[in-house]
């Protein structure tokens, strides 16, 4: 048994419209930040919050129909869906991020929800970033995740989910939500892996085999990503060792 465990640090981003100040009561380990709309929370900022040492992040917005900005809360929900995938890939697990759409009129006191989340994080323990052994890897993963969350492809997809799944394009086509999810999965995975490769090859040139081992992926998949990354100017062949090419990251904007 550990001696005295430190209480988890929780960051809570709360929509400015959810309640009036005096009604709000939260556990002492909650740091509440008011934002004009939880849709304001750029996925990168949330990952950055984890990188800063938060053990858990909670987003609190208005009930679907109450959003002051029509559907900012739903945009946030989409972002969370994507972020959970990234957090899993990064080894933090999706349980550290939670979004609730809340109305004090219907759901009563906020206390309950805050406590519940706080307990969930106690169970998960403190962020692996605080574990000296895991820290370097997690830091690398979070850096890759942040880059993935800034990737053009992913953000366009995210920003246009509503348009893609609810409205038809000029050709009368519409993507089903399932297809969209699969697409999102693919892109999240791909972007994460690419930025991870980029991160790993920053200081030291590595071979496909070495990378495949480090990432726990098949060499053929790694090779496909590298081909793609070369086309985009993210990586280049550094030199060939024996028959094996080594790759090194290029500076990206």
């Amino acid at each position, binding site marked *: 048994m550990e001696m005295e465990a430190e209480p988890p*640090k929780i*960051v809570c981003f709360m929509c*400015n*419209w959810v*309640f*009036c100040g005096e*009604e709000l009561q939260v556990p002492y380990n909650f*740091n509440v*930040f*008011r*934002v*004009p*709309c939880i*849709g*304001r*929370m*750029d*996925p*990168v*900022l949330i990952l*950055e*919050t984890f990188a*800063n*040492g*938060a053990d858990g992040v909670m987003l609190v917005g208005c*009930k*679907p*129909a*109450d*959003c*002051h*900005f*029509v*559907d*900012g809360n739903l*945009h946030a929900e989409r*972002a969370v869906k994507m972020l959970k995938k990234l957090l899993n890939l990064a080894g933090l697990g999706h349980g550290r991020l939670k979004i609730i759409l809340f109305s*004090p*009129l219907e759901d009563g006191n906020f206390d309950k929800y805050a406590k519940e989340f706080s307990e969930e994080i106690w169970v998960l323990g403190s962020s692996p970033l605080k574990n000296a052994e895991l820290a370097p890897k997690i830091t690398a993963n979070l850096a890759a995740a942040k880059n993935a969350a*800034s*990737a*053009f492809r992913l*953000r*366009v997809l*995210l*920003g*246009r989910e*509503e*348009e893609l799944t609810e409205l038809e394009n000029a050709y009368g086509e519409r993507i089903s939500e399932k297809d969209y999810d699969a697409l999102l999965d693919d892109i999240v995975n791909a972007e994460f892996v690419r930025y991870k490769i980029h991160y790993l090859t920053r200081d030291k040139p590595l071979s496909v085999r070495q990378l495949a081992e480090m990432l726990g992926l098949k060499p053929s998949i790694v090779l496909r990503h590298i081909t793609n990354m070369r086309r985009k100017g993210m990586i280049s062949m550094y030199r060939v060792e024996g028959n094996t090419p080594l790759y090194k990251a290029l500076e990206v904007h």
Partner: protein
Amino acid sequence: MEKPQLKIRKLPPCRAACPAHVNVQAYVSLIQRGKFREAVEIIRKDLPFPAICGRVCFSPCEDACARVNVDQSVAIRGLKRLVADIEREQGRVKGEPVPKKYSEKVAIIGAGPAGLTAAYELAKMGYPVTVFERMPEPGGMMRYGIPNFRLEKFVVANEIAYIQDIGVEIKTGVEFGKDITLEGLREEGYKAFFIAIGAQLGMKLNVPGEDLEGVISAVDFLRALATGKPLRVGERVAVIGGGNTAMDAARTAKKLGAKEVIVLYRRSREEMPAHPHEVELAEKDGVKFYFLVAPKRIIGENGKVKAIECIRMRLSEPDESGRRRPVPISFSEHQYEVDMVIPAIGQVVETSALPQELLNKDKGGMLIKYDPQTLETRIPGVFVGGDLATGPASIIEAVGAGKRAAISIHLYLRGRDPKEGLDETIEEVTWVKDWNMVNKKARRYDAPIEKPHLSLEEAMEYLMQLKKKARFEAFRCLGCGPCAECLAGVELCEGDKAVVDEVKCVGCNVCAVICPVGAIKKNDRGVAQVNEDLCKGCGLCAARCPENAIAMRKLSAEAIMAMISTALER
């Protein structure tokens, strides 16, 4: 002459429609957040009568409310009444005295809503103001016209006391034209005047028998009651007219114990100028209506009313103005046996009290010669407004006039042209482009708050349940106006705007798709451009821009991260 460049002020429909431009969107959004007291403070910035108007305003805001395109208007008046009543739960709210900044004394004649509002506004600016009123109590028609069951006297007294708190002096029992005159006041050092004596005189029917005992005009009837004079109400009462005053007189007579009250109106129900809701309530009280009849004479016995003889009317074909005039039908005379007749066919101004230069001598024109925009008259320093200038209208229009008068008087006293106060035009805005979308997404609180017309005890009980309902109701507001209209999140939202870095922008259009209010569009160079009049500063675009090309002026990503890292270091 060169046309002056007008400032355009973009307002949500509700605020644009309100003659006093009360900041509806702001206080409704405060109610959403349960900030009831702050909501009243916002109302009071534009209107000194939140509780009064919450009860009896004709609420042009609700007629204009954009939400009617989706379902029904937001219950704005009900919400206003509620917050005003909540504020009073803990006793009357006192106003802070405003220090005098100027030395020029201003005299206001008539303590109706027009005069009181002008006094309130001028006192807020720092002028010494005195209001002269001939009745024993201030308030005008709010005090002596509108009956107690619609507007309690103590509510009027409270809101006037607030105006006195901030430094307005009210002298009652002083009649202009008799006890005081313009010249006299000038000698006493008053530099500017606002005359707002209303339209207090009930119009005559001009039929034989009008001087019989038992004939009393509606305003005299209501005024006598409000002054506490002993009043004998007939058993069978005929009220002549179809306006709100007629409804008030009829309902009052019924409540005072008349066995039967009939309203005689010379057009049909559709043409009645009274608010349909008031008509409904009168019917509920048991008042009977006879349409298309006009009085011909009042028949007396021993000098007292015994019956009223009427003639039937029919409506003519619509004339050029589209109005259908009532035309008498020959030989259709008939009588109603009544012992009291209350004419309520309109009010006129007591012109005898006014300086004769103000009157329009040419027939047909306005009664009073004045500039309807600046409220100036041909006598320098004398301004007029309210019912006096417009004819019987409404409280909120009188308030609007009072505010305009205060601006004009201020400019006049500072040696400037009152026309300078007219430097803006108002444009109605709402960000909603597609009403179907609203219906689908935002309408969850169907039940609009019933407009309460309740007794005090009922109202208090109702109030408790209402607080919760009110917040649901407030959530129906679409928040039509631009960002600065909503003062709720001053520390975070107000003034925050998206800024596009034109170099980074690649024209992907994600921001345009995501912006909830359509404030961001690609311009002809293919670069995103923010329309600052529409942007509400939500930051959704900044959170999604794939190229990091959009930053928020206040709550930037850096600002958020700085907050977080300091919090987590602790």
